[in-house]
Structure formats: C-alpha cells, structure tokens
C-alpha cells in the first residue's frame, strides 16, 4: 500500500498518448512516444529489482473504491505470474515504437503512436488488475487500439482481418462478462455483499453445473485469445495483415493475455472444473501444436508461417498450464516470455525484409546470406531460439513444459508434443534454408541493403535476453515459482476435496461443510 508504481506504470503511456496528440512535427512525435514508452520500461525494471521473490501473493498493491454500489474497486497488484509479462510488454512496445519510427509506418504517425501507447495502457492494466470489473474494462480497452492498428496501417485484406479479430474477441469477452456477472451474483449470496475482487471470489460455493458453465464462459474468451485450436482462425489473418508493430504486440503480448487469463482467473476460480477438463485441454493443446506446425510448414508467405508457428507454440504453453504441476506451469510462463521474444523478433525481421523487398513470399528470396549477412545471422539466432536450441531461452521453457506434461496425469500428451517440437525445427529450418541459403535466384536480392543502426539497436536487447534467459533462468524462475505454487495449492485443495467427496461418508465426517460446498 502507499506506492503508486503500478498506477504510474499503467497510466504514463496514456498520458504519453494524449501528449503525442498535441504534436505536429513527425520527428518529435516519434521521439516523445518512444520516451513515454521508456518510462514504463524503466519502472518495470525497477519493479523487477524491488520484487520480493519469497512473497507468493500480490505486491505493490493499490486499492481504492471505485463503484461502491457494485463492490468494484481499483485494485491492482503484481505477482510472479504477471511480473515478467509486464516487463515483456513494456519492452516490446518500446522496441516496436523504435522500429516503426524507422520507416515502417509512413502515414499518420501521430495516430499510430497514440494507439500504441493506449494499447500499452490496456495491456498493462489487464495484467495488473485484481478486480474482475477492472480487468474486463482493460481487456476490452486493449481491443480498440489493436483494431485501429490493423485496420489503418495493415496490409492487403486488412478490413476483413480486423473485423474478424474484433468479432471473435468480442464474442468471447461478452460471454465472459455474463460469466463474471453470474459469478458475482453467486458470490453475493455467499459473502453477503457484492464484490468483484478476485481475492474474495475464490471460495464461492457453486454447484458443479454452475461451475462448469462459468468455467466455459471464461475459458472460451481466453481460448479465443490464445488462440487454441479450433478457435484460432482469426489469428493468421490478423497477424498477416497487421503492420509489423501490430504483429509484434499481438503475438508477443496479446496472445499471452489468453494464457494469463487461464492462470489468473479460469483455473484458480474453478479448479475442480479445470481438473476435470484437463484431458480435453491437453488434447486440444496437442492438436494445436501439431496442426500449427504442419500448416506452418506449407505456407508460402513468411509472415503467415510465423503466425501459424504461434498457434503451435501457444499449444505448448497451454499444455504446460493444464499439466497443473509446478514444472508445467513454470515452464508455461517461461515459454510465454520466450514466445514473446522470439516471435516478436521474427515478426520484426519479416517486417524488415518486407520493407526492403515489398514481398513476403518465400520463393521470392534465396541466398540472402550472401547479400545481407548481418540480417541472416540475426535471423539464424532468433530461429534457433524459437525452435528451442539448448543454451537459448526456448529450450528452458519447452523442457519444463514437456517434463511437466510427462509427470501429469495425461503423460501421453507429452509424447505427441515432442513430435511438435521436431516439426517446429523442421519448418523453421526449411524456411530458413529457402530464404537464406543457396544461390541468389532473383537479381533484386543482390542489392538489398543490410540492417541499419536502428534495426540492430532493436534486435540487440532481444538477442541479449534470449541468451540470458537460456543460460541463467534462475532469477526469473525464482520469482515465478512461489506464485505458481500458491496457484497450484488451490488446485491441490480442490483435487483433494474431489477425491474425498467420492467417499461421502468419510467426507461428511471429515469436513461436512466443505463437502457440501463441492457436491
């Protein structure tokens, strides 16, 4: 209590967005937007240092009454699950703005910077909200700037892509709203007052049917955002048609809002249903892994390939989450960060080559290694991180997830997921081979210029983090683990209660009130 770090983190970008609107000169627009994205980055790095790794609960908590009639408060806080996603967000927004100022966005830079900073406010708010109403508000707010980013600065069938994106997401989130309201109504009967506070809603007694429907309401919204197969169809369009910065944020951070939603809301609120649904979600995750990889393999368009690889990678994250054991969930969170870095970097690299050649067709390239070696080397590094080479970040996450899945009740999922890993290496390397190696088949490719200083500056922090997170994951995992243990503690309690309630006589002897609540 008493600190304003998180409020500052959330609203400094909004302030920046409004100030950017007042400027007219293009250079100063980009400069001020970049500076306003550096401030939250600096705050989030400070919070990384100030974060107490032994504390599992929320830190830097702020709570103020907002709408007392509904028990809604402005309640924000940060724990090990959200800490690194916040840093990822602030970092990627800064890098995207830095990159976009270098020629990628030519029209209406003022609006572009406005929407990017507004998006940052939405994303950070959703990650830090502990109040369900506040979360929902930010969850919807972040949709609006992304919709404009794709619709105004996108390519090709951008209107189709942006409509599809918005309608899919809104469909999910409105069902989630209904579920939230129902849950709060049920909680009122239990608590005696209305409350949207997540910490008060954990122990609401629900009938199994109610819990299943409510879980479904949350899970569909989050599964669309992740996206889980078969709800993924908006993703290839949105990712492909979005401007580079949009794709980076969409893949890097926005998809994580779905997986984060499962960890923060769907699973802890309805642990019994999550346990029941484990086989289903693991199966869907495995299908997503394999399907995403197979479809990525046959894409002629480099950006679409990266987009489908996201479906596959997010499948891994979901697999880790629904393993519901420490290794799996730790790995899933780690993999969210990895995917944010590597896919964000891949989209940046695709954007850079598109800016030079105005095409993303793999067949248009070939032999780029000879003409633009720095680009090819950076691409190689990022690709290796993406496919999980030991020593780089991807390996740590994937290893933990597979270990977690193997130790879970549905170990067979791990077996199939390993195949996804192999396919992942295959499609990435094959694409790399066709783009970078061999003779230069198209004359234009000989005169392409290599990365400039600004582009290298964008890639260096990403590469540095990939190395760091691959070689020395301890500082991150140390902060993630306690919060995950707290989360899984809820799941364990629920599992125990489910097992005991299967023996009614025993259960009623042991804990009559609890078994009543569950059954």
């Amino acid at each position, binding site marked *: 209590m008493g600190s304003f770090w998180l409020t500052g983190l959330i609203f400094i970008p909004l302030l920046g967005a409004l100030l950017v609107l007042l400027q007219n000169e293009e250079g100063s627009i980009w400069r001020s937007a970049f500076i306003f994205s550096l401030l939250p980055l600096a705050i989030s790095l400070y919070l990384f240092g100030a974060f107490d790794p032994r504390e599992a609960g929320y830190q830097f908590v702020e709570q103020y009454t907002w709408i007392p009639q509904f028990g809604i408060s402005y309640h924000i806080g940060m724990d090990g699950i959200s800490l690194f996603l916040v840093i990822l967000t602030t970092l990627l927004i800064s890098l995207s703005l830095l990159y976009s100022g270098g020629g990628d966005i030519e029209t209406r830079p003022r609006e572009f910077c406005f929407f990017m900073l507004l998006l940052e406010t939405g994303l950070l708010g959703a990650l830090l909200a502990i109040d369900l109403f506040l979360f929902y508000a930010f969850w919807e707010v972040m949709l609006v700037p992304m919709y404009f980013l794709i*619709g105004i600065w996108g390519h090709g069938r951008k209107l189709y892509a*942006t409509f599809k994106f*918005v309608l899919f997401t809104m469909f999910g989130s409105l069902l989630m*709203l209904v579920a939230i309201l129902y849950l709060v*109504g049920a909680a009122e009967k239990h608590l005696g007052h209305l409350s949207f506070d997540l910490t008060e809603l954990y122990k609401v007694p629900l009938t199994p049917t109610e819990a299943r429907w409510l879980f479904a309401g949350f899970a569909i919204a989050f599964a669309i955002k992740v996206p889980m197969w078969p709800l993924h169809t908006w993703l290839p369009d949105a990712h492909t048609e979005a401007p580079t910065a949009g794709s980076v944020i969409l893949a890097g951070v926005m998809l994580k809002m779905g997986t984060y939603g499962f960890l923060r809301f769907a699973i802890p609120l309805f642990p019994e249903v999550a346990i029941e649904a484990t086989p289903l979600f693991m199966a869907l995750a495995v299908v997503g892994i394999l399907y995403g990889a197979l479809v990525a393999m046959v894409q002629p368009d480099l950006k679409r390939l990266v987009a489908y690889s996201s479906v596959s990678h997010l499948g891994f994250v979901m697999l880790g989450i629904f393993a519901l054991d420490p290794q799996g969930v730790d790995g899933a969170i780690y993999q969210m960060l990895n995917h944010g870095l590597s896919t964000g970097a891949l989209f940046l690299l695709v954007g850079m080559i598109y800016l030079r050649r105005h095409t993303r067709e793999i067949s248009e390239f070939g032999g780029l290694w000879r003409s633009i070696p720095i680009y090819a080397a950076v691409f190689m590094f990022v690709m290796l991180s993406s496919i999980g080479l030991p020593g780089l970040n991807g390996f740590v996450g994937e290893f933990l997830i597979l270990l977690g899945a193997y130790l879970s009740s549905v170990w067979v999922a791990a077996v199939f997921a390993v195949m996804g890993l192999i396919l992942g290496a295959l499609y990435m390397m094959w694409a790399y081979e066709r783009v970078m190696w061999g003779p230069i088949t198209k004359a234009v490719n000989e005169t392409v210029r290599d990365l400039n200083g600004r582009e290298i500056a964008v890639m260096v922090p990403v590469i540095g983090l990939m190395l760091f997170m691959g070689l020395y994951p301890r500082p991150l995992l140390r902060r993630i683990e306690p919060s995950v243990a707290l989360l899984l503690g809820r799941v364990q309690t629920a599992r125990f209660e489910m097992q005991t309630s299967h023996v009614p006589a025993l259960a009623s002897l042991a804990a009559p009130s609890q078994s009543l609540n569950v059954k």
Partner: protein
Amino acid sequence: MNPFNLSAINFAWLPILPLIAVSLGAIVVLLVGVRVDDEDSAGLGFIALVTLLAAFILALFTLGQNTESFGGSLAVDDYAAFFEIVIIISTAVTVGMSLDYVAEARLAGAEYYSLLLFAALGMMLMAAAGDLIIIFLGLETMSISVYVLAGFVRRELRSNEAALKYFLLGAFSTGFLLYGIALVYGATGTIRLAPIRDALTAGMAGNPLLLLGLGMMLIGFGFKVAAVPFHMWTPDAYEGAPTPITAFMAVGVKVAAFAGFLRVFLVHLGPVSAQWTMVLWVIAALSMTVGNVIALVQVNVKRMLAYSAIAHAGYIIVGMAAARAPEAGGAILYYLLGYAFTNLGAFAIVIALERQGETTGNIADFRGLARNHPALAAAMALFLLSLTGVPPLAGFVGKFYIFSAALNVGLVWLVVIAAINSVISAYYYIGVIVAMYMQEGGIEIGRMTARPALLISIAVAVVGTVIIGLYPQPYMGAAVNAYASAIGRTTPHATALLR
C-alpha cells in the same frame, strides 16, 4: 377521501414550477417569433435555452421532496426529477444542435422551438404522472408536437412521409393505450396508480379485464419506445425527420416513454410482475435481435441508428423483464442517462455532416472523416464504442448494470442473447469507424468553428459519455435514489429492498 373537499387536495406549486417555466418559455418563443425572420431564428433558440436552464434549476429544487401534488395526480419524487433533468438536458442539447441547422434550412424558428418546448413539457408530465390520465396527457402533448416536428421540412417529401407515418401509427398506438387505460379503470374503478397497485395486491391480479387492459397499455408503450414488434414506424420516421428531431425522437421521446412505461409497469405493477415479465422477455429478445440484425445491412446512418435505437430499447426491456431484481429500476434509469448522452452525440455528428438541411446521410459520407476532422471522427468513434458497450464508457456500464440485474433473477439465457446481440451490433457500429478511419472519399464539410453551438452540443455529449462511464458512482446513486423514491411512495417497505 371526499373529492369535493378542496382543502384535502394538496396544491403544491413548487413541484410544477419546471413545467410552468417550460410552457411559459414555449409561449414566449412563439410570440417573439412573430417578429423574427427565419434566418435569424437562433435568438429564439437562445430563449429556449434560457427557459430550459430555468426549468433545470427549478427541477433541482424539487429533488428530495418525495410527496405528491394535486391529490396524487402528480408524483413529486426524485424519480420525476431525475427524468425531468434528463429530458431538459436532452432538449437543451437538441436545441444546441438545431441553432445553425434551423437557420440554414430557413425553417420557421418560432414554431420549431416552441414545439420542442411543448414536447419537453409533455415528456416531463409523463415523468411526473401519478395517474393514468396524466400519462395520457403528457404522451399526447409530446406526440402531437413531435408529429409536427417530424414533418417540419415541408418541401421534403421524405419529411412529409415520416410525419404522416409517425402520426398514423402513433395515433393508432395511442388508441391502444387509451383503451387499455379505460379497461383498467373499468376493472379497478380508479385511474390513480397507487390504488391500482393496491387493488392488484388485494387479489385482482387474475381479473381478465385488468389483464386485457394491461396488455393494451403494454402495446401502447411498446409503440412509443419502439420495441419489436411495434417498431415499424421507427426507421422511416427517423430517416425522414430533420436530424435534430431524429435525435430528439431517439432520445427524448424514448426516455419519456420509458419514464411512463416504468412508472406504470415496474413501479406500480411490480407485485404482479409474474403476469407480464414473460411477455417482456420475448419483446426484449425480439427487439435486440431484430434491431441489430436489420441494422447490419443499413447504408443510411439515420436508419442504422434507428434500428440501433430499437435494439437499445430491447436492452432496457431486459432490465424490465428483471423486475423482481431490486436493482433493476436503478439499472434502467442509469442506462437511459448514458444512452441519452451517447445517442445525442452520435446524431450531432450526423448533423455536422449535413449542409443546408440536405439529408443524404449515407455511411459512405463518413469516409475519410478522420483525416479532415480528426476531433469529430474521434468523438463519433467514442459514441459508437459506447453504443457497442466498450468500457469504460457510459454504454458499457449501463449494459453491465442491466445484465447483472437480469442475472440476479436468473434470466441467464436472455442475458446470453443480449451479449450475442452486442457482438452483432459491434459489426455495424464499427463499420462507421472503418469508414471514418480506414477509407477515403467521403463528403467535404466546412470548418466546424463556424458552428459553435453544434460543437458545444458534441462536447457536452462527449463529456457525458465519458464521465458517466468512468466515474459512475454519483449517477448510479442518483438513479437508485430516484427509483427508490418512486417505490417508496407506494410501499414504505420497498426501500428496504434496495441496497
């Protein structure tokens, strides 16, 4: 009570001062207008604005009185004051939107502004009605003024058509309402709302004459709030009427009709809600679905907003179907407040795109607006997002409030239908945003600084839409209080139901 004992009747003058102020203002406008040319009618508009300001201040004084006047014919409670204030604000914003419009189109300003004020008078009367005759009186005062206003551009065929359709169907629906009132009177022997309520609780709820009367009244109100299947007049009337009047119909008329509708059904027929909530369930589901689905294919923005207004009536009726929920009344009042600002703003932007009273009004006209008039486009985007229900704007919090009331009494499926409808509505609201931000080649409009009154109206709507959504507490408090005062007048216990 002996009706001939005049001393028993309480003539409290203070509560009707706002009504008197508005009628006096209307008469002054009409008289002064004789000497004013049509091009200079803005001055008359200012008289109307001053009148409304006076009425607004007087209405504030009636807050917290919670009594009755004229032997119960007029309800002097916060419910009436709340609606009077919303109606006064809506009328004032409508006048603001009209100042340049009426002068440019060379409409007869004296009649125009005095009719607006008379319509507002009727609306306020409906809000303060304590018996069925006053409701009817208010409804007719409002309707007849608005029929004329809808056809005000005499040269325009579409305006004539709008007025005629609105008049014929409106008269038809008034017939239903009046017949319903007669039947209810026949069944209960009274036109006062409070005794009707007592009769119902005393076991008359199953009386077929009464039920038939209630059904007829439901149809009458259904017409006025433009709920499906009584919505047929809406698109044509909205499209043809002068745009400020369309805004007035979509906001003022709807708010006032709901004021009467809620007063009769929710407040006084609440005890027998089981008799009518099922009907409202169906009407709500139909209104939302039909309104939103047909809005999808509209190319004219006024027609689109007309269907959107039908859909919004549906959302509000979801709240009425949840009559048993203690927070339903407050939720609806709050929703109407947010809806008023949002919709007035949207229509104000439509007016900004029209010149000389020409009504093209196609969505294609909005193309490229963001490039030439970024502030206008941003305001329109804000209104459309609020109508869609995107937080933290007024439209979202209103929906949220109504949905939670409906879920509280177990109307899960109706809320799911409403949620799916919100997604459908996103498609056409966003279509306008697409045109403004992502397409090129709309119409050219002049500099907005030449129309300061319109700009101020838009600014008021923007501020309302944002503030009511971002910091809803005082407005929710006002809405809940207002509804509680209406309930409290009839049963002292009912206030205990409210948190």
